[in-house]
C-alpha cells in the first residue's frame, strides 16, 4: 500500500510523540539522579554526583543486586528447561488436552500478580508449612518465566523443517545426538531471547516477590521499595534506574540481532 506523504508524516509524528512520553519520565529520572535537592524539586536548584558515589558505596544495594542475580539466574535456568520441553511437546504432537497445556503455561502470567502471589504464599505457608526463603522466590519466578521461553522456542520450532530431525534419525543418530547436533543449534538464539526475557522478568518482579520472599531475602526491587521513601536514599534509586536502562541495551541489542539473523536465514 502506498501511503500519502501526509499519512506517513502523521504516523511518524504520533510515533515520535509516544516515544517522547515513554522517555520523558526516564529523562527526568536521569536528571534527578544529579539533582542537588534531595526531594527532587523541579527545576533542580543545583547538580551533584553525590548520589552516584553513594550508590556505588552502598553495601546493601550490592547485596540486593547479588540476590536478584542469583534468583533470576536460577529461575531462568529452570524456565529454560521446562519451557523447551513443553514447546517441543506441543509443536510436534497433536493430543487431547493440548490447548489446556498451552493455557496452563500462560496462566501464571495471565492471572493478576496478587493472585499468583497470594496463591503461592498460601500454598507454601498454610498448606505445606514451609518457611518463605530465597528458594520459594525462585520457584515462584520460574513458574511465571516458563511462558517466555516457551513462546520463543515454539515460534522457532514452527519455522524449522521436521525433515532435518528425520534425516538425522535416518543417518543413525539417536534422539539425544539429534537434539544436541540438529535441534539445539537451531534453537540457540530463541533460547537466548527467551532466557533474556525470563531473566528480565524475574529481575524486576516485585508483586509476587513480596508475597513469596522470606525475611532477609532482599531482591533489588524489594531494596528499592524499602528505600524509595527515605529522603536520603530516594535519589540513589534514580541512579539504579539509569544504570539498569543503559546496561540493558547490550543484551537487547544482541537478542535483536540474533533473532533477525536467524529470521533472515530461515526465510
Amino acid at each position: 500500500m502506498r501511503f500519502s506523504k501526509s499519512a506517513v508524516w502523521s504516523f511518524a509524528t504520533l510515533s515520535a510523540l509516544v516515544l517522547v512520553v515513554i522517555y520523558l519520565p526516564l529523562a527526568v529520572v536521569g536528571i534527578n539522579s544529579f539533582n542537588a535537592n534531595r526531594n527532587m524539586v523541579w527545576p533542580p536548584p543545583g547538580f551533584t554526583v553525590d548520589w552516584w558515589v553513594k550508590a556505588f558505596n552502598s553495601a546493601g544495594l550490592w547485596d540486593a543486586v547479588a540476590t536478584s542475580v542469583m534468583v533470576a539466574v536460577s529461575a531462568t535456568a529452570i524456565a529454560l528447561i521446562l519451557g523447551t520441553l513443553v514447546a517441543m511437546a506441543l509443536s510436534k504432537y497433536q493430543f487431547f488436552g493440548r490447548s489446556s497445556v498451552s493455557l496452563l503455561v500462560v496462566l501464571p502470567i495471565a492471572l493478576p500478580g496478587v493472585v499468583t502471589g497470594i496463591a503461592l504464599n498460601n500454598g507454601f505457608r498454610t498448606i505445606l508449612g514451609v518457611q518463605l526463603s530465597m528458594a520459594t522466590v525462585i520457584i515462584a519466578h520460574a513458574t511465571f518465566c516458563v511462558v517466555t521461553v516457551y513462546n520463543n522456542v515454539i515460534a522457532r520450532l514452527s519455522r524449522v523443517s521436521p525433515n532435518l530431525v528425520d534425516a538425522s534419525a535416518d543417518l543413525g543418530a539417536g534422539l539425544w545426538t539429534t537434539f544436541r547436533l540438529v535441534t539445539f543449534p537451531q534453537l540457540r538464539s530463541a533460547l537466548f531471547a527467551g532466557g533474556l526475557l525470563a531473566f528480565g522478568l524475574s529481575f524486576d518482579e516485585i508483586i509476587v516477590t513480596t508475597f513469596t520472599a522470606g525475611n532477609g531475602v532482599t531482591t533489588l526491587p524489594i531494596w528499592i521499595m524499602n528505600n524509595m521513601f527515605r529522603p536520603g536514599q530516594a535519589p540513589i534509586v534514580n541512579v539504579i534506574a539509569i544504570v539498569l536502562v543503559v546496561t540493558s541495551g547490550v543484551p537487547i541489542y544482541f537478542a535483536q540481532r540474533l533473532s533477525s539473523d536467524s529470521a533472515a536465514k530461515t526465510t
Partner: protein
Amino acid sequence: MTNLTVQAKSQAAVSPARRISSLLFRKPKLRLGLLLAAPLSWLVLIYIAALAALLVTAFWTIDSFTSQVQMGFSLSNIQQVLTDALYRTVTLRTVGIAILVTVVDIVLALPIAFFMAKIAGPKLRQVLVIAILMPLWASYLVKAYAWRAVLSHDGILQWILAPFGGQTPGYGLTAVIITQGYLWLPYVILPIFTGLEKVPNSLLEASSDLGAKNLMTLRTVVLPMLVPALVAASIFSFSLTLGDYITVNIVGGASQMLGNLVYTNVGAANNLPLAAAIALIPVLLMFGYLAAVRKTGALENL
C-alpha cells in the same frame, strides 16, 4: 580373539542409551509423556495446586483470639466480600481503572505499532523495537516513582503546565491511570506490532488497487485481522492492572485497589482466608475475560 571383538562391537552398538533411544523412537506417546512429565508436574503441582488451595482457603476462617487459621467450612468470608460495600466499590474502581488504562494504551499503541510494522524500513524498525523494549528494564518501581516526581506539585509537569494556567493532577486516580498506562504500554505495543507484521502487505496493496482509501483499508482490512492481537494486548493490560497494588501506593493518594485489600489482609491483618476470598474476585474476572475471548484466538498470541 576376533570373536570377542565382534561381540564387543555389537554390544557397543546396542548400548543402553541406544536401546532407550530406539524404544522412544518407536513409541511417540512415550516420548510425548517424557517431554511433558517435568513441566506439567511443575505447573500442576505448584501452580494449579496453589490455586485450588486458595479456593479452599477462602472457606476457612481465622480464630479471632489466636489468629490461627481454622480449617472447616464457612461462607463468612465469601458473604463478607459479596455484601460489604467496600469490596463492591473497590472492585468497580479497579475494573474501571483497568478499562481506562487499556483504552488509553491501545489508542497510544496503534499508530506507533503501525508505523513500526508497515512504514518504517528494517533498520528503523529494529531501532524502534529496541526503543520500546529498553524501558521495560528500567525497574517498574523506579518508573512509578518517576511519575511520582513528574506529577508532584514541585514536579516537572507543574512547571511545564503552570505558564499555560494548567495544573498537575496530583496524586489520585488520574495519576494511577497515567502511571499504569505508562507502565504497561510496551506490553500493549508489542503484541499489536506483531499482529500488524502478520498482515501481509499484498492485502493492503490489493485493497488500495481496488480503490480503497488508506483509512478504509485500515478499517475494513487491517482492523479485523488485528482483533486477536488487540485482545492479547488487553489481556496484558487488564491482568497487570488487576494484579497491581504498588502503583496505587506510590501515586494513588488514599485510594485503594483490589490488590491493596489482598495485600493488607495477608500482611498487616494476617487474615489469609479473607485475602483468599478477595483474591477470587480478580481470578473470576480474568477467567471470565479469558473465556469470553478464547474464540478470537488471542490466547495463542500471548
